[in-house]
């Protein structure tokens, strides 16, 4: 009965346009969309045979405006979902739209010279990045499984194409094909999960799913429906796990990273992972907060799955990376390991509603990881030899000595990835491990502390392969001469990444505050989590008043 009433109300609501204030929710996404559309029109009139650098800078500026709009909207967030319950306008969404814009802009900056060296200077490249960013922005804001899935596909499909953008390079084509087939496969699994959830609850709206699941749990004799929901939860989880490249859904990562154009890998490794985590948090925190579904401490729910995935990802990623000869492959495995650390933070922070505020560690880690990773991919893509980028460790020989600035940026990025102060990466890891240990000590569950110990130990192994990069850059002889692709774009990207990595490591206070505000403003949560958020809000206000 309730359900029918709700759907009637919904139909009525569909016929009325959204209120004026609700349009704010689509502002960042609309800006980037409009930039992309304008881009098409400009590109149509582009004179053949001239470089497309100005288009790259145009997209970067557009993405910058997109990020700035998130900043502008920061204090104007809304309590209820907008657009017929499809989108949230909260700081969490704004945070991720800004992150996606920044990551996209940095990746674009690295690209023009690479594309030209492969004789693939096409406007579509930037266009695809822009459309992917649009998908990301809407995904972080989704309040409904439908909008989430559409955004998910808008984000993914351009990336499949981008992975194969160097179509004359057979490995790039192969990477694209693999990524596409497997991505479509995992998207299908996710869609199946969404269908099951819809079948069990009769709605795709995240908050209503939570409500209906609550009723389902309460009613007797409804266990079949509940099992259906559980299966749906797992399928949706597997879709996200695929995108963040967590073991055992990581299998595509090394091949795709090795084959794709280097700046695309930088974009893929940072923005896609970040947004997948945003979606993961949103869906699971809002729609599936039930203790039965969540589990935890080996009660077999999604927290336990995340726990196991975190452990496997950290160990496998770090250990297998030890043996790689190809830098991009090594970075692929290390990105699997990073997914593991992030899942560790996710597991700890969501094990119980009262730890929800610890999610700020994930957000900070993602920011730190974004700058560190794009920095290292920017350096890799900066060097080229007859259309080939730097790939194996041996290719790096002496580059650090011949190009000191590149060496410095690589050093900072690598130290950040390895988690050594005073870089942002250290603080990110520090935060993640702190939240795991804190949760472990407060709940007297040794499993969390054990997982944190596993994480730190595996990161010790990580230091070995990260340092290998520096050793080759400075100490090994030069095997093949690589020349820098002289271009301002990658230099700007590198400087931004290096400066931000150091800045976030040394003066993290403001960034931490932003991540906290994002988490505190998280919309759509259950009342238990809301109580935690209110406490956090009070603490934050008290501190800001004290200053």
């Amino acid at each position, binding site marked *: 009965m309730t359900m029918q009433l709700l759907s009637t109300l919904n139909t009525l609501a569909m*016929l009325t*346009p959204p209120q004026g204030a609700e349009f704010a929710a689509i502002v960042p996404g609309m800006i980037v969309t409009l930039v992309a*559309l304008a881009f*098409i*029109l400009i*590109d*149509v009139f582009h004179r053949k045979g001239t470089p497309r650098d100005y288009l790259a800078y145009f997209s970067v500026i557009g993405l910058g405006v997109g990020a700035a709009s998130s900043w502008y909207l920061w204090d104007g967030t809304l309590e209820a979902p907008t657009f017929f319950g499809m989108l949230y306008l909260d700081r969490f969404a704004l945070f991720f739209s800004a992150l996606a814009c920044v990551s996209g802009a940095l990746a674009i900056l690295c690209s023009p010279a690479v594309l030209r060296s492969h004789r693939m200077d096409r406007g579509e490249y930037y266009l695809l990045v822009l459309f992917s960013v649009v998908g990301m922005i809407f995904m972080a804001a989704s309040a409904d499984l439908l909008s989430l899935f559409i955004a998910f596909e808008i984000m993914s499909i351009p990336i499949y194409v981008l992975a194969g953008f160097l179509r004359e390079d057979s490995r790039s084509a192969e990477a694209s094909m693999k990524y596409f087939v497997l991505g479509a496969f995992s998207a299908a699994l996710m869609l199946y999960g969404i269908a099951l959830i819809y079948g069990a609850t009769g709605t795709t709206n995240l908050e209503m799913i939570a409500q209906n699941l609550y009723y389902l749990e309460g009613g007797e004799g409804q266990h079949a429906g509940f099992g259906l929901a559980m299966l749906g939860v797992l399928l949706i989880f597997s879709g996200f796990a695929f995108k963040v490249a967590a073991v055992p859904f990581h299998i595509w990562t090394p091949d795709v990273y090795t084959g794709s154009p280097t700046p695309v890998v930088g974009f893929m490794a940072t923005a896609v992972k970040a947004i997948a985590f945003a979606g993961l948090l949103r869906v699971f925190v809002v729609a599936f907060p039930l203790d039965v579904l969540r589990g935890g401490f080996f009660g077999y729910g999604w927290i336990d799955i995340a726990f196991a995935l975190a452990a496997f990802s950290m160990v496998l990623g770090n250990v297998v990376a030890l043996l790689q000869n190809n830098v991009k492959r090594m970075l692929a495995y290390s990105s699997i390991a990073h997914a593991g650390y992030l899942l560790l933070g996710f597991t700890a922070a969501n094990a119980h509603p009262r730890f929800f505020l610890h999610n700020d560690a994930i957000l900070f880690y993602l920011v730190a990881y974004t700058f560190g990773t794009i920095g290292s991919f920017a350096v890799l893509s900066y060097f080229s030899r007859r259309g080939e980028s730097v790939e194996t460790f041996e290719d790096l020989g002496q580059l650090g000595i011949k190009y000191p600035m590149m060496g410095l940026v690589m050093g900072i990025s690598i130290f950040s990835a390895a988690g050594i102060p005073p870089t942002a990466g250290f603080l990110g890891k520090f935060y993640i491990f702190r939240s795991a240990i804190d949760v472990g000590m407060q709940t007297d569950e040794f499993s969390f502390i054990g997982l944190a110990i596993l994480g730190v130990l595996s990161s010790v192994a990580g230091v070995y392969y990260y340092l290998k990069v520096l050793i080759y850059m400075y100490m090994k002889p030069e095997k093949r001469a690589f020349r820098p692709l002289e271009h301002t774009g990658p230099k700007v990207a590198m400087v931004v990444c290096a400066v931000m990595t150091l800045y976030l490591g040394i003066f993290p206070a403001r960034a931490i505050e932003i991540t906290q505000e994002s988490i505190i403003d998280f919309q759509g949560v259950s009342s238990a989590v809301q109580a935690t958020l209110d406490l956090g809000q009070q603490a934050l206000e008290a501190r800001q008043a004290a200053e």
Partner: protein
Amino acid sequence: MLIANYIPLILLVLVAIAVVGGIIFAAEFFGPKNPTREKLMPYESGSDPLSEPQASRFSVKFYMVAISFILFDLETVFVIPWAMSWRESAAMGHGFYSFAVMALFLAILTIGLVYEWSQGGLEWD
């Protein structure tokens, strides 16, 4: 839930089966038969779906046209229901809003068309 609720659906299915079966039967029974190789192939944008990929190089042109067709076909699918319900929407006082939304949608499609045109997607060779 009663079976009676589903009677229209069952009837629809039955009619559909009867019509399709009838057409196939009639074509088989009355039609002239003049088979060529092309006619015997399943329809798949003009390429042989069963050959080895190395043996036959297919033309991309078919796909370009097919994709454009699907896009604008879908556009129609969106536009027709909109046109049907615009009157109601206008009656509720949201006419301009509905119009603006559809205009935006068409504008985006138009940009896509311009792009396709400029990229040579509409030329056959």
